[in-house]
């Protein structure tokens, strides 16, 4: 008998249909992956199961947990099940915990609220559960507050709260999306071992096919509130009957047709022993202390070169970017661009040679300006910027360069999707005809299919224009596709560099090896054997 049994589940929020007849089963001890792009309804399926739908929701169909029809239970009855029979893990560990309560109290609360123990016993069990999820009391006392833990550690606390009463069903909503790859691998391992030990059913929601490919027993693919395809993981990857599944898979393993390298030996940017310190908040009666974000970094970008920079969050790659753009001063070493020194006081003409594309397509534009004015902003750097008709022509040309219409110049930014906004960001970066563009995690916030299109655009620009770029990313798969040479950064230092293929195939430094081992990968279908997870990345 299946543990969770969902039939013809429909859901409308304020009259808008969100789920249009979902049917799926989860057996005890089984890991089911629910995947699809944003807006496919995968998270809402989880919240419907948990009975925590937003206000104005109307659900129909049936959801049975061990035979009990959940949709007909009162909220009081659902409260008995939540935390006890069903546990849930959320996407954002930074905000999922109460900031003013200790982690021990928060884990013990799951036990106490269900009357499973006295206060002292609950606290003892909380300690045991925290040890189970890898937070032993010797190193992580239960009196810690959430802000004293890292993101990965907080996610372990959330997991501890969810499994404290050994529920039958565990629901994990994008549990590793907010985490770095190495942390992600550890959390996935932890989830796998817990599910196995307690014989739980796990509903794992993720947008990343690779994350679940070697973990899930079965995969459900969702699109626009429908299930388009479901089946055992290996069968599904082998057959892929629905075109949407194929499109999703193709986009995830997208090969970019990068033109052959045309790098020339003349350097355009030289970073030499750069050091960047941040002042920490000053404490009373103590000298000010500093945190070193970038530590003696040296690198060179040549004309027409496609360079990658890989590292996890907090490794200093964004800080390095800001220093290279001359936005922040260095505390040691120097950066030269086109032979001139880079820094906050550098001349505008020098700035126009380097432009940047940021990660967040929603925060990159002033919402009160029209697109034409937005992409023309870098003309401020030129001594004699085009005006009138010439300006309109340049804006139109720039928009066409990135696959948009000249008429788009008269619209406001809210009229565009995330992918279109990244195109506009690229148009803005291109308008001064720079020699170098820095892409700072420029495709990380996009859905897989949109990401593939933007990568193709970058390759296309590289073919048509004489352009060098520095592509900064945490995603090794993308860096492999789009760069010729790569630098690996850890804790403010460059630990390895070399041709992309060589570094990623035969990593020398331990950290690079860890990164590559931790990166989730899709089965390589070209070998015809989906079980043999591709050794190359």
């Amino acid at each position, binding site marked *: 008998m299946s543990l969770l049994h969902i039939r013809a589940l429909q859901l409308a929020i304020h009259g808008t249909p969100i789920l249009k007849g979902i049917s799926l089963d989860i057996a005890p001890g089984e890991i089911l992956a629910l995947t699809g792009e944003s807006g496919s309804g995968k998270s809402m399926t989880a919240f419907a199961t*948990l009975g*925590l739908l937003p206000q104005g929701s109307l659900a129909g169909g049936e959801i049975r947990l061990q035979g009990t029809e959940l949709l007909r239970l009162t*909220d*009081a009855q659902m*409260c*008995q*099940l*939540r*935390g*006890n029979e069903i*546990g*849930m893990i*959320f996407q*954002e560990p930074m*905000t*999922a*915990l*109460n*900031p*003013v*309560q200790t982690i021990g109290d928060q884990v013990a*609360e*799951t036990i106490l*609220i*269900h009357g499973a123990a006295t206060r002292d016993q609950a606290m003892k069990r909380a300690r045991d559960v925290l040890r189970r999820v890898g937070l032993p009391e010797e190193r992580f006392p239960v009196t810690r*507050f959430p*802000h*004293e833990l890292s993101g990965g550690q907080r996610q372990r606390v*959330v997991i501890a*709260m*969810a499994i404290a009463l050994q529920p039958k069903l565990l629901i994990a909503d994008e549990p590793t999306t907010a985490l770095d790859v190495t942390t992600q691998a550890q959390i996935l391992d932890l989830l796998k071992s817990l599910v196995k030990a307690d014989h739980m059913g796990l509903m794992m929601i993720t947008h990343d096919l690779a994350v679940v490919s070697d973990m899930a027993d079965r995969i459900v693919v969702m699109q626009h509130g429908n299930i388009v395809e479901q089946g055992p993981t290996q069968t599904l990857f082998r057959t892929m009957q629905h075109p949407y599944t194929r499109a999703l898979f193709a986009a995830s393993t997208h090969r970019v047709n990068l033109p052959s390298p045309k790098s020339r030996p003349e350097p355009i940017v030289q970073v030499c022993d750069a050091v960047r310190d941040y002042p920490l*908040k000053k*404490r*009373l009666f103590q000298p000010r202390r500093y945190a070193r974000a970038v530590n003696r970094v040296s690198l060179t970008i040549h004309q027409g070169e496609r360079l990658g920079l890989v590292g996890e969050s907090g490794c200093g790659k964004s800080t390095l970017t800001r220093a290279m753009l001359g936005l922040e001063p260095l505390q040691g070493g120097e950066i030269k661009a086109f032979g001139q020194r880079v820094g906050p006081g550098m001349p505008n003409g020098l700035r126009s040679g380097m432009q940047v594309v940021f990660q967040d397509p929603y925060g990159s534009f002033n919402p009160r300006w029209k697109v034409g004015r937005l992409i023309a902003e870098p003309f401020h750097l030129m001594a004699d910027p085009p005006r009138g008709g010439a300006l309109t022509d340049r804006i139109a040309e720039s928009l066409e360069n990135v696959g948009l219409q000249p008429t788009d110049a008269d619209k406001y930014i809210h009229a565009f999707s995330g992918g279109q906004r990244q195109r506009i960001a690229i148009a803005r970066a291109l308008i001064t005809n720079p020699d170098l563009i820095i892409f700072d995690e420029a495709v990380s916030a996009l859905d897989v299919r949109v990401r593939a299109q933007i990568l193709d655009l970058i390759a296309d620009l590289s073919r048509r224009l004489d352009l060098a770029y520095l592509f900064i990313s945490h995603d090794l798969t993308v860096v492999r596709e789009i760069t010729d040479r790569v630098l690996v950064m850890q804790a403010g230092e460059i630990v390895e560099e070399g041709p992309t293929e060589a570094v990623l195939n035969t990593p020398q430094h331990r950290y690079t090896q860890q990164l590559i081992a931790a990166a989730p990968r899709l089965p390589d279908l070209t070998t015809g054997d989906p079980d043999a997870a591709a050794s190359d990345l």
Partner: protein
Amino acid sequence: MLRYALKKVVSLAISLIIASVVIFGVVEVAPGDPASYMLGINAQPDTVAALRAELGLDQSRWQRYLAWVCGMVTGDFGISYTYRASVGGMIGDRLWISLPLALYALTLSTIIAFPAGLYAASRRGKPGDVVVMGATQLGVAVPNFWFAMMLVLIFAITLRWFGAGGFPGWEKGLFAGMKALTLPAVALALPQAAILTRVMRSSLLDILGEDFMRTARAKGLSQRQAIWRHGLRNALIPVLTIVGLQFSFLLAGGIIIEQVFFLPGLGRLVFQAITQRDLIVVESVVMLLVFAVIFVNFLVDLAYAAVDPRLRSRA
């Protein structure tokens, strides 16, 4: 925690010093010589000079500032120009009306606002919420001194439940004193309660949207349990700020309300002093009020740290 408290003590001291300099400075630039004002236009120059010496007005600005500040620290606020009496004594008597009035009003405002805000937030968008929010909209718009007059009209003149004004003195017993302060306190408290209710409601609604409230529900807590155990303490942080600010408004607002009810508090003292150009009284009362405000804000800062562990470790 100790470090945090120490830091706040230092900033308290700095604020007080700057405030005292500002107040002293403003009074210094006041036109006219208090001594000649006190003695009238027909006074002999040598009498004026003698009085100037007696009041310490012949000393340099710095000496007078230091004398003023040191005096206040030891409880000596100087001599009133008009009454030739100790300002400290005059203030002390009046403070026993103004301070209880402000605290009474603050208590009322908090007692009304907390449940009202909680109720409105839990009934968001429903008739109960609409009624409470409508009442607060009105409460915010009512000037408290006019509201006080209407209370007098209804409860003192028409219904005769309370006296129309005056204060019997605390020696007549706690009940008689509190009764005389009740209408003024209600007049002060209700408009402030309206503001506090709105803050409480919106703060709670913000918290209800937080991820950790969803986590609490996923653990099996009911909506009510989640609000009590996780919501309230987090919602309290912005509410505390407003409670602290309100104390200063109640203390200052009390000055006006005292006029309506003929209460012999700091307000009466300060307005008499203004008409008589008794600047040393004005100076001292203003400094006292500012001290009270800064000190309450200091207490609020300490309360923050008690509520929010992030502050304890960050400072």
